[in-house]
């Protein structure tokens, strides 16, 4: 009872803190930047936060984190604006919204589609924020009981589930994870302070900066992929205007059709977000599919169904809050967006994981409050400005991409004022570009890189405590539990993929 009261009191303090003008302006700024970047096709929500992180180096942790979370949340929603207006998902998470959103827009109901997406998105994210508030601290409290051996096995579990979920080939996923682990070894050895894989480059003695790798392998490599199609891009046709007042409104009938899908898809989004590696791009399809199966008018799906938009949008935005659960409670990023957020936490001197609740509890509750408030703000901002986004979504990529190139460079340089970091960023851009062209999932490499120091530190500590006995990794019921779920998840996923292939062969 006492802990619930203290949670509520810290949450109330969090709301007061976030509502202070000096903090609130960053929340609003994050929403606007996230919306603009999410609405531009080719710029994902993750890329948005990777590009915003450099602006947050010199502000307080609360300001920085609420700004980035607002950008992430708004960026995920922003993707649906271009999906609805120009049939091009601004982010992969909005892919399922294209069919019904653009179909409604072609009927002169673009505003209705945007409002449907907005209601669903805000509900999904609010729902997952509540789940986050209720679940992260209890999980973290339990995780404090983990010893180094349990943590090591948990890392193995995280890596295998990420690798298996992130792409068509589990081997490629695991290889990506291993490459990330290797990159994480660069720098001084934490125990014996001997340089490792630095090739005599002084800058590498302190290791590879997470933000350098994220901006290079994620944002810049994505840009290199996108520029290949930049010359073929065509201007999109204008949409017809609304024919009656109702075409621009989210009506009571729309609400009656949507609310069940919001709830179902929010549950789906929370489940997918809480598991490492799955992310909003998967959630939108699972939510859309679940909505179609239970819809009152399944025949309208793909032809402008409000239920379809509700299903996909609630699911993809529910991931935003839920993927903070493994990040805050275990220090394991849920997806690439959460991986970039880990970088932002580290830049602010905070280490995500169970100890964060003991070391900086109020900052965590400020983040919760920021996440909840950003949904309300997102709702207000979009209701006031949705007409502007038609123009933003049509901005020419020939102008956008060069500007993003320049921002990537400035962002990396700003981190340590070092041009060596910029060269490293270009190196990771090439690595990311080549690997992604060959369908090696980049997300596993990034998550491997983030987990590398935690994995190695715990594995070495466990081995030192057990005098080099490898049996320590099988020594407790918790270790066995993690090994068991690792095996079960790998077997299930391999079996699922094989079954899928057999089904395709049979067709």
């Amino acid at each position: 009872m006492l802990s619930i009261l203290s949670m509520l009191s810290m949450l109330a303090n969090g709301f007061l803190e976030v509502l202070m003008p000096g903090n609130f302006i960053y929340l609003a700024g994050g929403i606007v930047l996230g919306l603009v970047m999410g609405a531009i096709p080719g710029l994902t929500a993750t890329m948005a936060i990777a590009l915003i992180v450099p602006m947050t180096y010199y502000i307080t942790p609360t300001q920085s984190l609420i700004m980035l979370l607002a950008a992430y949340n708004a960026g995920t929603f922003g993707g649906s604006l271009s999906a609805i207006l120009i049939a091009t998902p601004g982010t992969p998470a909005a892919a399922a919204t294209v069919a019904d959103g653009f179909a409604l827009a072609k009927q002169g109901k673009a505003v209705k589609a945007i409002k449907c997406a907005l209601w669903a998105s805000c509900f999904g994210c609010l729902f997952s924020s509540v789940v986050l508030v209720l679940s992260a601290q209890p999980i973290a409290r339990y995780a404090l009981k983990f010893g180094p051996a349990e943590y090591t096995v948990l890392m193995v579990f995280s890596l295998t589930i990420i690798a298996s979920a992130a792409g068509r080939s589990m081997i490629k996923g695991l290889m990506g994870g291993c490459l990330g682990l290797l990159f994480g070894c660069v720098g001084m050895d934490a125990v014996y302070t001997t340089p490792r894989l630095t090739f005599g480059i002084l800058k590498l003695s302190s290791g590879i900066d997470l933000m350098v790798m994220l901006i290079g392998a994620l944002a810049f490599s994505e840009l290199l992929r996108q520029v290949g199609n930049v010359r073929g891009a065509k201007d999109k046709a204008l949409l017809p205007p609304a024919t009656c007042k109702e075409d621009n409104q989210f009506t009571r009938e729309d609400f009656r059709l949507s609310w069940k899908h919001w709830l179902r898809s929010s549950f789906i989004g929370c489940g997918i977000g809480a598991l490492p590696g799955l992310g909003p791009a998967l959630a939108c399809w699972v939510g859309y599919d679940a909505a179609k199966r239970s819809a009152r008018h399944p025949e309208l799906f793909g032809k402008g169904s409000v239920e379809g938009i509700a299903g996909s949008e609630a699911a993809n935005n529910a991931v935003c809050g839920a993927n903070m659960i493994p990040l805050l409670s275990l220090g394991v990023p849920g997806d690439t967006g959460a991986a970039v957020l880990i970088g932002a936490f580290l830049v602010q001197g905070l280490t995500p994981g169970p100890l964060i609740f003991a070391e900086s509890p109020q900052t965590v509750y400020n983040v919760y409050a920021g996440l909840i408030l950003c949904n309300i703000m997102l709702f207000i901002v979009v209701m006031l400005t949705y007409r502007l986004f038609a123009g933003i979504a049509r901005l020419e990529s020939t102008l956008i991409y060069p500007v993003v190139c320049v921002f990537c460079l400035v962002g990396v340089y700003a981190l340590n004022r070092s041009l060596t970091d910029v060269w490293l960023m270009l190196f990771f851009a090439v690595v990311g570009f080549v690997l992604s062209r060959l369908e090696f999932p980049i997300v596993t490499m990034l998550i491997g890189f983030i987990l590398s120091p935690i994995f190695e530190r715990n594995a070495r500590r466990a081995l030192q405590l057990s005098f080099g006995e490898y049996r320590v990794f099988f020594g407790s019921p918790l270790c066995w539990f993690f090994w068991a779920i690792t095996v079960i998840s790998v077997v299930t996923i391999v079996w699922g993929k094989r079954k899928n292939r057999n089904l395709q062969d049979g067709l």
Partner: protein
Amino acid sequence: MSLKEGLKESQVERYAGGFFALFSIALYFFVIPWQIRRVAGASPSPRSFPLAITATVFALSASLFVSGWHKRNREDQKVYLLSAEELKLAGATLLVMGAYTALLYAFSYVPVTIVVLAVLIRLYGQRTWWKLGVTAIVLPPLIFAAFTYLLKLRLP
């Protein structure tokens, strides 16, 4: 095999598997012993973790190679198309960014960025000169001012 025909999934798996197998052998036997000093009496030593990962990469590369070998006669393979246009633009972008970084050692941020933005915008096919001019000339001073005066951060 030409760029236009692309690479079959089995080919990609065999080439990538072969490349990473050789890469992991080089790492295991040459790079790691050269780059990580042996520490007497250390258990586990600073080399242990990188060596274990490298061994795992080798095992995975071998499986990828074998998987590609088994698939080599399958008809329904995914084909990886390597568009020459895509490679050309990605390569040119990297070259321009490399030159940009090198120029920043010698020149200040604003003039170099104006030139780089103009080159990239033109490279990506923008034909409207006023759009090119406005973006390339207006943005760099704005970015510079924002970083220098708002974020108190000096750019090169």
